[in-house]
């Protein structure tokens, strides 16, 4: 990281971290996790409940917060661009400065109650760790996508609408389509096709990772069995890792190109 990127990053972190929304966001997870663990018991049921909250809330809040934040920092970006700063440096500073406070918010919000309630059960520890890691990954992927949207679309309302549309598509509509494909074409061997579809949606990847942790794959019928076989090994983890990396790097690069060519 260049010195310029680091300075922009530091100030961005300070600004984002001070926002009441981020504090409230961390507090929300703190309350959810603490509440579930306290009233539902320190077991996998609580973790599964948390997983559902994470899968729904993290992408939505990250998407909305990041797009709104980037739009509202337009004038600040103009001030920065008037300084002897390369756009690449500014972009990296903004991106990292958005990611880190949001990741910290979910990691602290989920991690602290989980760590306080932790038992010696290695399965619980593994599942809790996966949950926190998944929340962090979701945050990174959504932030990168949101920054790309915000730098590609000039109009704030359109950008926000596209962001929410993407969220809706990936977290709700997409699953419905996959389900329709599975039920509509149930006479054909669709295992690999469904697997490919899952890899195309980063939210599904994370969902899959969590479900596999909970041995809930059996609930996902025949594809679930196939997925469990595939992902239980090192190969599966590498696949998921590569897919998540892909969903970070490609939108990240597209976002940079949009920012580089943008007129302010």
């Amino acid at each position, binding site marked *: 990281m260049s010195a310029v990127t680091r*300075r922009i990053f530091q*100030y961005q972190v*300070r*600004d984002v971290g001070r*926002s009441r929304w981020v504090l409230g966001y961390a507090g929300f997870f703190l309350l959810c996790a603490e509440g579930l663990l306290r009233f539902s018991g320190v077991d996998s049921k609580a973790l599964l409940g948390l997983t559902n909250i994470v899968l729904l809330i993290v992408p939505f809040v990250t998407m909305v917060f990041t797009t709104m934040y980037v739009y509202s920092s337009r004038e600040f970006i103009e001030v920065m661009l*008037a*300084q*002897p700063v390369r756009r690449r440096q500014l972009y990296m500073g903004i991106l990292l400065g958005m990611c880190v406070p949001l990741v910290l918010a979910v990691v602290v919000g989920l991690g602290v109650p989980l760590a306080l309630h932790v038992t010696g059960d290695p399965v619980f520890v593994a599942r809790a760790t996966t949950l926190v890691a998944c929340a962090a990954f979701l945050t990174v992927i959504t932030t990168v996508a949101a920054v790309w949207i915000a730098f590609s679309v000039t109009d704030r309302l359109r950008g926000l609408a596209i962001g929410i549309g993407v969220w809706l598509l990936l977290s709700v509509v997409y699953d419905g389509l996959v389900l329709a494909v599975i039920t509509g074409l149930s006479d054909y061997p669709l295992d690999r096709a469904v697997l490919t579809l899952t890899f195309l949606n980063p939210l599904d990847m994370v969902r899959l990772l969590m479900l596999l942790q909970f041995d809930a794959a059996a609930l996902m019928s025949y594809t679930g069995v196939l997925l469990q076989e595939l992902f239980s090994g090192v190969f599966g983890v590498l696949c998921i890792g590569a897919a998540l990396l892909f969903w970070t790097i490609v939108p990240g690069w597209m976002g940079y190109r949009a920012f580089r060519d943008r*007129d302010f």
Partner: protein
Amino acid sequence: MIEIRGLTKAFGKVTVLSSIDAIFADGRVTAVLGPNAAGKTTLLKTILGLTHADSGEIMMDGVAVGDDPMYRSRIGYMPQLANFPANLKGRELLDMLTALRNQSSKLDWRLVDAFGITGHLNKPIGTLSGGTRQKLNAVIAFLFRPDLLILDEPTAGLDPVATGVLKAHVAEARGEGKTILVTSHIISEVEELADDVLFILEGKVRFSGTVASLKAGTSQHTLERAVAKLMMDVAA
């Protein structure tokens, strides 16, 4: 000295700047004038690299600025809207810019005292009034004693006292041999400051020269009337 050659910029089908040529000399204040949407702000932003020109080049002291961002370390910019991150304090923003520019000596803090905003620097910028933010905006533009000052509607939102302070500062910078570009839609405001006028209409340079020659050429006594005459002549 800044020289602009054949600068052209279109947003979609709308040509905002059409082959603009101009020279901004050291130690002179050039008023960039024109009606709304004439391309004034786009011209300033293109000089800064905020907007990418479709063609043409910008030369600083005879050297094309190109892709290297370092030429901007010699520019102080006061944008039209003084919106800064709401959660940051003024002091933190100034510290960040100082660190970014890697310049901690020879800073010009005089405007902070002249505007009387020392106390406001320790408050989050979001809590400051529009006028105070505009003062901070001016402080930033002058802070690094830049060779080139680009001031876009600098007096918008400032009270008469602050406007006087800013004008005096601009006049002093001119005395030190700085190159200064000012836009304003209130022409009488720039009259006492400007040495030269660059009048833009629909993306084209319609007049470029000294204030005196503009007044003489249009046989008017005030800059405001001279510009009005110029616009009527172009329309006719």
